[in-house]
């Protein structure tokens, strides 16, 4: 009984982690989200995440690469936006 409910729980956490991945979260963000919204202990999330990573190495590698890429793009965009804002404000002054 315990085993099956444990297994079910792990499956649940697994599913939730996948959803978080769809939101492009990393492990820490996932732990926080699951803890906040689903009352799942971060350590559990973390453990399940690590195990998933072991089982799906390539996926997670690609995932982190894609996240890094998106982060850099978004960072670039943000920087650009800030620069534009600075330019605009300086233009206004003149």
């Amino acid at each position: 009984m315990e085993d099956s409910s444990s297994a079910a729980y792990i499956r649940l956490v697994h599913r939730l982690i996948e959803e978080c991945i769809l939101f492009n979260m990393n492990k820490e963000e996932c732990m926080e989200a699951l803890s906040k919204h689903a009352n799942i202990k971060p350590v559990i999330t973390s453990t399940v995440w690590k195990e998933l990573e072991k089982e799906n190495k390539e996926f997670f590698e690609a995932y982190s690469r894609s996240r890094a890429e998106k982060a850099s793009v978004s960072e670039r965009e943000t920087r650009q936006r800030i620069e534009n804002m600075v330019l605009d404000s300086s233009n206004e002054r003149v």
Partner: protein
Amino acid sequence: MLAVSPLRSTRDEEQGEMESFSIGTDDFADLSEGNLLESINFDDLFMGINDDEDVLPDLEMDPEMLAEFSLSEESEIVSSVSVVNNKSDDRNENNIVTTEKQDEVIAANFCSDSGSNSGSSRGEEIASKSEESIHSVVVNPSPKESEKGRKSSTHSRNNPQGKRKVKKVDWTPELHRRFVQAVEQLGVDKAVPSRILEIMGIDCLTRHNIASHLQKYRSHRKHLLAREAEAARLSQRKQFMGAASVGRGGGGSKRDVNPWLAPTMGFPHMTPMHHFRPFHVWGHHTMDQSFMHMWPKHLPYSPSPPAWPPRTAPSPPPPDPLYWHQHQRAPNAPTPGTPCFPPPLTSTRFGSQTVPGIPPHHTMFQIVDPGIGIPATQPPPRPLLDFHPSKESIDAAISDVLSKPWLPLPLGLKGPALDGVMGELQRQGIPKIPPSCA
């Protein structure tokens, strides 16, 4: 099942077969060279086919005879063979593939007068291939296909000795396809050779060529339905006779129909697409877009592979991967392959759970729990453009998961090793049963 009805009058099939058999033998007896097909005066075989006459002889060739025609006819044989080989869905893909293959092979021969010469070299080149496919084909001839193919092929071979004072036309699959297109455009009954010629717009063809080809085409169309029943019966018989002939017939007519059907075959299988709405979240970035582009293209083809293995025995596996490989050329399918095929078809959820070896971007598109079926509801729409999703949407998604545990995994990642998780948690001092506090 093609039995050449060699003589000047129409016979019923049985008779035709037998006679053709003997006649074929006679013909062959005279042939000493390798270019059997060239030597055979097909005009004799198709005496009935003149512009003036409306009656076409029973165009059925004995498979054994055709087996020996491993020359210029081969290209058509191959296509028709592959065509015939197919029973249902396969047929279409096969047609496309073989047609492609043939187009490549035949390209040079398009509208060439030296059809026989080039044909024979062609034939020799693909001799082995066609023989292989020919052998496999015998099983399920689509008589209409065979006949049409044969028609076109024999038509091209007509007049080796100037029986008709017309330039020999090589009715390649491509050419025939255009012909059929033109005919259908005009309406089969209304199709006039001169108009067809105009529509096709090919210089090498004369109205004469078109007219005779049209006649054959029409005649065979009439026979199509009637022959279908025969096909099953005869195919069994042909099995013993060995390869070839069926292919020839199959190549001509069905070829043009099936390629058009083929692309649509995948569509019914596309319906499960809504399964994958969660993937829209990836839609924004280039990498993801490429996934999305690739992925729908997989679907049409992936259902088909499972259908292929259960082919009839005579159909040898070897041609199939080749066809599939060629077929896959168009969609630029990525690397992974189905369990059934060596060539690159993704192993999708249809057959399997997540496959560890598959590159990550493919696992993203797999649903692990086919048993669960199609979820009644979709996950809440994700913020596609938002790098930092809102709390509300996260909350919604999570509560959705919590409330509907039967939903399949959106990513289909391979589940964690339970032992590993349990062990780790115990080390952390946590019993497994859902803890009450976060």
